[in-house]
């Protein structure tokens, strides 16, 4: 079974409102992210809310286009560009957030996006490791817990991607226990 088949099998076996942690190696992380987003937006017809703490939107949109992901079905919450003083191009599907460490603002943006975007959707947090570089673990766990609870209350699906064996064991456990499934690719 290849990676995409494994991802689709796992996600197909969960009731709506699922929260899944994807764990993979650094080499595979990008491909796993793109394949998962493509599966959910193309196959499942979900709208994606991508919280990007790893790459600026310009790079992400390029990658999505290369992968033939319909970017009209994606809203990117770009946590990188503003803090890196990158050029903030006006884009119809990008919200620029202050920084990866503005967890309150990120939470507000996710909540507002969930409330406003109609239909079936998913929130993709990319990535736990990137966010942990900029945030204290205990605060970050609170943030994840808070946002997952809000998502569960309204039945929004969620994906958290992280590097396998690269996260502190306790932090990993605090977050993983909140997920419905851990999928190792």
């Amino acid at each position, binding site marked *: 079974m290849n990676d995409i088949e494994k991802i689709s099998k796992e996600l197909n076996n969960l009731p709506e409102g699922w929260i899944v942690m994807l764990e993979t190696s650094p080499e595979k992380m990008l491909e796993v992210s793109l394949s998962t987003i493509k599966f959910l937006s193309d196959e499942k017809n979900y709208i994606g809310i991508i919280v990007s703490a790893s790459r600026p939107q310009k790079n992400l949109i390029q990658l999505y286009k290369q992968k033939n992901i319909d970017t009209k079905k994606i809203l990117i919450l770009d946590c990188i560009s503003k803090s890196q003083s990158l050029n903030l191009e006006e884009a119809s599907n990008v*919200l620029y957030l202050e920084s990866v460490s503005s967890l309150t603002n990120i939470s507000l943006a996710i909540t507002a996006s969930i409330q406003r975007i109609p239909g079936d959707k998913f929130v993709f947090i990319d990535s736990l490791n990137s966010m942990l570089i900029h945030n204290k673990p205990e605060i970050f766990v609170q943030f994840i817990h808070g946002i997952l609870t809000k998502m569960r209350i309204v039945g929004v699906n969620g994906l958290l991607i992280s590097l396998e064996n690269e996260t502190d064991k306790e932090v990993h456990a605090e977050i993983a226990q909140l997920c419905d499934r851990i999928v190792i690719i």
Partner: protein
Amino acid sequence: MNEKKSRQDNSFDMSKIKAEIENKLKGTSDYGYSTGTLEQKTQYTLEAVNKAKKAKKYVLTGVSGFDELFENGIPKGSNVLVAGGAGSGKTIFCLQTLQYHVSRGEKCFYMSFEESEKRLMEHMEDFGWNSEKLLASGNLKIKRFLPSDIHYLSEKGNEDAMFAKEEDSQLLQLEPVTLEEGFEPDFVVVDSLTAIASAFMGKGGSYRFYAERLFRFFEKMGSTNYFITETKQIPETFSQTGVEEFLADGVIVLYNIKRENVRERAIEVLKMRGTKHQERIVAMKISDNGMVVYPKQEVFGGMETK
């Protein structure tokens, strides 16, 4: 998992959605609450308005989202400290509250011991509140006082007054501030207690006495009063001497929290006698239209005091 594809219509306009989300984050959206000029109606849910009307003995602030932190509102006639560090939004909070009340025909008085009237009017204009029109309505008065203008008693007089038992003692009846004759405000802002305290440098006992007189003066007047007080960014005490937070009926604290190289704003109702309120620190932003509070959004970290 449900294998059928979602049948949603994906021809919706993501750019429109994005703009709406941005507006909501900035606090300029239509739904929920909106701040406004005298011409714009402040929109409240019917429930909140009726509740406030029925209650009559409570007042709202009109600050978007903030009133949701209370079960009813702020009890009328309360003395409320508005505490926070530099740039945390204390002046904006108070100006916004007064703007809300003036637009409802209520009388408001802004006593500034720091900024000039002109500067305060410019602040209001920054948020789209027509300060000239508000002043012209006759319901808003902004007056600058110098801390040295304060009618405080001489050192000796203070000591006598503190221990004086006769209630009709002239010393005790001396008013701590002078208001314009014929203007009985429903709401007063004193900006700030910190500036007033500076006039009592080295005379801590006199300041405490004065503060107590000030609070009692406004209590007798029956107005609802907001006293701005400057603190550390993450305060452990909320007033100059500690006595003010003891005397006050309520304490509202504004935060400007440092998170790595950015700041996130927050607000809480630390104390409010006579009403139930949320006891948590929630997110707040200052938008182009004024302050917006997010009563359901907790704040993550940054509150640790060193």
